[in-house]
């Protein structure tokens, strides 16, 4: 069972990575990052169930991760709203402050 979970997680991660690197809308980028995070969570759960040393620790750990991710998503959206207010756009390729 482990390989199918891992494959599933890898596919999810790749979709997320693709979205994060390619999409121009900042909201979609944020969503894609959540997708990558969840792929990691899936890995954690899969290893805690089918890994070499199965234990409940991994599942609890992933619960914590989800909680922290929720907080992180809230912060991310807040930053995004602030950015939208100041720049008037959500297009990622127009955010090029790092060049200046």
């Amino acid at each position, binding site marked *: 069972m482990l390989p199918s979970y891992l494959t599933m997680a890898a596919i999810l991660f790749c979709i997320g990575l693709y979205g994060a690197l390619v999409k121009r809308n900042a909201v979609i980028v944020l969503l894609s990052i959540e997708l990558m995070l969840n792929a990691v969570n899936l890995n954690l759960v899969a290893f805690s169930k089918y890994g070499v040393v199965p234990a409940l620790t991994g599942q609890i750990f992933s619960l914590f991760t989800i909680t922290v991710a929720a907080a992180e998503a809230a912060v991310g959206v807040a930053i995004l709203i602030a950015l939208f207010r100041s720049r008037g756009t959500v297009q*990622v390729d127009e955010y090029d402050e790092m060049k200046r």
Partner: protein
Amino acid sequence: MEIYTKAAWIIPLLPLAAFLLLTALGRSYRRAGVLIGTAGALAAFLLSLLVLIGRLGETAVDYSKAFDWITIGDYTLRIGFEVTNLTSMMLVVVTLVSLLVNIYSAGYMKSDERITVFYGYVSLFTFSMLGLVLSDNLLSLYIFWELVGVCSFLLVGFWYARPAAKAAAKKAFIVTRIGDAGLLVAILLLFWYMPDHRLEFTMIQSVFDGPSGAITTELSTLIALLIFLGAVGKSGQFPLHVWLPDAMEGPTPISALIHAATMVAAGVFLIARTYDIFLDSAAAMQTVAYIGGFTAIFAATIALAQNDIKRILAYSTVSQLGYMMMALGLGSLTGGIFHLFTHAFFKALLFLGAGSIIHAVHTQNIQEMGGLGSKMRVTAWTFGIGALALSGIPPLSGFWSKDLILSVALQENKLLFIVGVAAAFCTALYMARLFFLVFMGKPRSSLGGAHESPSVMTIPLMVLAALAVVAGFVETPWNGALGSWLSGGIAEEAHSSGIAIIASIAVGVLGIYLGWLIYVKGSVSRSIVSDKAPWLVMLLERKYFIDECYERILVKPLKGLGTLLMALDSYVIGGAVRLVSAAADSAGKAAVRLQNGQVQTYGIAALLGLVVIVLAIVGRRFWS
């Protein structure tokens, strides 16, 4: 009086101090520059004079003092100074001419913007020349030998805005370098074969004096010839004489100081210093004698057809240096040094006189001059004395030294005697031509502004004229004072010979008389030679096409090789360098394009980097 000999090391330091002071002061202190340069030369002259006077007694012993310079393993290189009768005489000649040139230049270079620089260079030259004279070993002599070459380069090219001066400076430096390379090889050979690698002149003297067996005759021939090559370059002997006439592009006082009296005599001095090596090898002596004799007649004939006053004097210098070499080659150290001594005075006088003329009329072409005798009385009289001394008219100094050389030649080698007499005839003829064309007759172009030079220029002329008259009496056929003094009491056998005296007087008078007939009286047509043998005049005017030959045979191929190497350098080596820089440049440009401030681009770059690292780690497993 011994104390002055021991303090002789101070003499070169005085002009050196003047040079350093002048360099530190800069160009704005014009009067101070003149005073400092002259003061340095004056102090050096006075001290040299004291050294010489202290050594005039019969008992004077050679004095040398050295200190350790470099120690490498067991070998210690020592440098120091040595005062012998020969060096003390040279000290006085060098410092006296330098002092007079310093005084003279105050007038001649008065309106030059860089007069302070000029005085600095002259002081540096005086220092180098004195160092050369005082050196006690070949290595430090070589260092100063190169230093005088550098000073000559700087002063020949002093008016570097003129292309001719620049070219002449380069030519002087490069041509003498050829000779210097020979000298360097000779020093290396001596270093290799001398016992304990000693290069001191005293050691050379004791090793080569008598059959010590340390060095074979073949080897000493080789060393002597290589040393002679150095002397040929510096003293403008036949194959390497081409730089000396061109060096006349420098200021005229420089021609008097460097290219007549001192530096060009350094070659003769060098041979005199290492004379024991030459005495060891008959072949080397013959080479020196024949090259010298050939140069004497060769340069004297060229001087017959030149029109530039300084070039005539330059070829005359080459010719007289040939005489000195011939004397040395014939085994008469006294003859060579004696002629060096007298020549230094009358040739410096002639050059300074020429400078006075050029200063007045602003041309160097003697065909445009004429009738200057009435306008410039002091110059005319002193120049006349110099010309008579050079032509070998008794009792002026040139007669005695030339007569000594001719007497030796008559005893040793009849062919060289004839060559010497012929050269003496040419000398008298070209000096008569020069003198009559410049000072007699009517002006051949508008020289209305010509007037006598200021006294700061004429006083050195008068001093030198006095010396040109009396300097010859130190060695006469009935009194070999100089010879016995130079060789430390052992008098050379007297060479007085009635035939030589009569011959040298006869050709001198005949040459001047012929010159008078042609250029004053006009009873012999001036164009008599050019009508009957135009090729001969052409040959002489173009200096036997030596420069053209060198241009074809040496300069062109070398320039071609240089162009080839330049192309190799700029395209192959430079190309590789440019390739590297272009690669770095384009990598940088790509990196700049990557850095566009967008976080997604950075993310892709990071991802690609990760992929590369992963591939590398995974791939390594497959490789090994």
